[in-house]
């Protein structure tokens, strides 16, 4: 019975926090938010030097071969630092798709480059109907002699413009789950276009991605034809864990900022931190965050170690952290008073990221119902 972190994991946490404090302060986050793609290839390269982009990748392919729990700890730090960029989509989702669904040749072709930070990937799952189930995938992949032709529109694709490759969920067959296949497509493939969709989260970018007769070779298919949904389900679980971890780190930081502010700020000749109403608000934030931390760690652990529990643990973590992060940042803004509502103060970076995290890959209501189904209520 050991529900704790190893020394290596604690070291990872510490070094990640130091690295991000140095390399990704909020001044940098704000600068990046004005850049076209909201992405710093330089930062990505530096993260690769830390081994982060290859954290999940087996050592044979140039990675560190670590666990989802290690990744969750890292993502917690990234959420804490509101790191912009496609890291989670590239180094967790696309990477996992290759590890778990790719052929030896595909792994060899892509994983070392992902690990080295040479290329960046993203996931194109959603479409206009904004549904997370198999019925949400309608983009057509038509088989031809040498491969497939993709036609259709993907929505809300994170950091598509910054990505070198897109993992696209497409329909190769009938209506059900077994009609879905997954393709790894290069972003500069002819016929593929990205239209930016502006959003309020300053740390994320999403795009409408159109495929207009995009032809790909059959080696672009990850996993067998019609085998895509199983892989995607696994990626959705991973995304839930990743977003929950990001949210946990963000919530913890928002709490700390709010508490710190109330200690410094005085009103009626005393620090506002001495007002019971604010103290209790902070205590309520703690009492939501602390048990949530255990839930996130467990979900990450279960993703690797308890396959039968993985989906329900992921849904539990995503549901809870969607609520907790949104509520925590809302309270944190309020604890700051008027200054918390300004553009100048940083707290809105977390407030907005919390809202994005809340809706991405299913909100709390969605995952509570998913849990009910998995548990057979």
């Amino acid at each position, binding site marked *: 019975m050991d529900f704790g972190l190893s020394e290596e994991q604690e070291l990872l946490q510490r070094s990640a926090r130091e690295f991000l404090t140095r390399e990704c302060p909020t001044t940098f986050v704000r600068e990046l938010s004005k850049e076209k793609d909201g992405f710093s290839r330089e930062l990505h390269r530096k993260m690769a030097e830390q081994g982060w982009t290859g954290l999940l990748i087996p050592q044979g392919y140039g990675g560190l071969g670590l666990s989802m729990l290690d990744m969750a700890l890292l993502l917690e730090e990234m959420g804490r630092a509101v790191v912009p960029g496609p890291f989670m989509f590239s180094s967790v989702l696309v990477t996992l798709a290759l590890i778990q669904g790719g052929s030896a040749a595909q792994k060899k072709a892509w994983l070392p480059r992902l690990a080295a930070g040479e290329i960046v990937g993203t996931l194109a799952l959603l479409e206009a109907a904004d549904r997370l189930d198999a019925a949400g995938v309608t983009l057509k992949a038509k088989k031809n002699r040498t491969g497939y032709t993709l036609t259709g529109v993907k929505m809300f694709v994170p950091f598509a413009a910054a990505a070198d490759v897109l993992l696209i969920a497409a329909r190769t067959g009938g209506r059900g789950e077994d009609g879905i296949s997954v393709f790894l497509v290069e972003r500069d493939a002819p016929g593929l276009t990205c239209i930016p969709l502006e959003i309020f989260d300053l740390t994320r970018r999403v795009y409408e991605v159109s495929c207009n007769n995009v032809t790909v070779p059959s080696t672009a298919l990850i996993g067998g034809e019609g085998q895509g949904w199983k892989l995607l389900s696994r990626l959705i679980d991973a995304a839930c864990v990743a977003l929950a971890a990001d949210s946990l780190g963000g919530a913890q930081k928002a709490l700390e900022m709010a508490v710190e502010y109330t200690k410094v700020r005085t009103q009626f000749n005393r620090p506002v931190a001495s007002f019971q109403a604010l103290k209790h608000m902070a205590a309520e934030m703690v009492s939501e965050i602390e048990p949530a931390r255990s839930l996130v760690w467990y979900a990450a652990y279960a993703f690797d170690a308890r396959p039968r529990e993985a989906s329900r643990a992921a849904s539990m973590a995503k549901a809870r952290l969607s609520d907790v992060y949104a509520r925590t940042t809302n309270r944190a803004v*309020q604890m700051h008073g008027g200054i918390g509502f300004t553009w100048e103060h940083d707290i809105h970076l977390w407030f907005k990221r919390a809202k994005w995290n809340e809706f991405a890959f299913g909100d709390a209501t969605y995952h509570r119902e998913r849990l009910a189904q998995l548990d057979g209520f």
Partner: protein
Amino acid sequence: MNLTYSKEDEEFRKEVRSWLKKNLPKKDKTLSDLPPHDPERVKRAKEWQRKLYEAGYVAMGWPKEYGGQGASVVRQTIVNEEMVLARAPGLIGAMGIQMLGPTLIQFGTEEQKRRYLPKILTAEEIWCQGYSEPGAGSDLASLRTRAELVGDEFIVNGQKVWTSNAQFADWMFCLVRTDPDAPKHRGISYLLIDMKTPGITVRPLIQMTGDAGFNEVFFEDVRVPRANLVGELNQGWLVANNTLFHERNLLGSTTRTQLMMQNLLRLARSRQRYGKPASEDPVIRQKLADLLIRVEAMKYHSYRQLTDAIAGRPPGIAAMVNKLVGTELNHDICSLALELLGSYAPLNRGTPHVVDHGNWAYEFMFTLGLIIGGGTSQIQKNIISERGLGMPKSA
């Protein structure tokens, strides 16, 4: 109890409605999509208030000699309701009408009333409010902007913050410290300051929405004639308090909340979630119904206060909850809208595929600002428990 309006009032409502139909420029319905300080928006908003005024629909309750009509609060309520229903933009001169006007009518000299009131109504002069200061926050009375009386002039130095509309306002009504040695509530005066006076600098404060709704205003040796003092010297707290806690401005805002709720219901019917309209999802229905009930409660709650106002009864504890309940309700409505929008929720105004012009996300943040501004919910709870329930001060 009788919730029907008199025949005359119903007639009047029809008149207002048809007047609005004829006179509200269609493009003005989206006026609030422009940044608040956009010169085009300011110009059109002034024209709109002027037009309303000429129709007799602005500050109808004010005495006739200052441009009002001594009309009943019912009439003004009808106008406010119809304005919201017609999606007319709010009055650009609201601060002057709601805050300064009543103060001047009660505390101003005859000369001040004649000089200032009419131009408030016509929007010839736009006012902003100079109460908040950095470092004061909820403890308003700890303000430090200094006004020294030298001869016939006050010399003002200091800084205000969270000042809406200061970018284009012509005048500011302002609280300043005129006796730094007196206890904090006793050394404050209420001044009217021409924003064109040398020494005033306005710096916009960008909000988390990206808009510059608020400003910082700096005073450096700003000279203000003694004649611009409202009420007695050092009695400014008393003067300001009178309108500051006058909570009856709820009446228009519940209509706005109702409209927001209608928009939310429309959104729920139109959004598909997993192949069905969101409004058919039992979980969403619960949330919609809960909000609707809270909205309707506030509607009848405003009727109750309107009735008190008609009868001349002072607003009691019922009125103290308006701000707390109203702002949180508006925020909750927007919050559910975002939930319905899912991946579409974070889209900004003007972006492809955005729903309802991105207003839900904007309002979600803006209403959070309202929860914080003008006395946070925390402060509202202090007021309710202390003034309403007689519970002792905490410190």
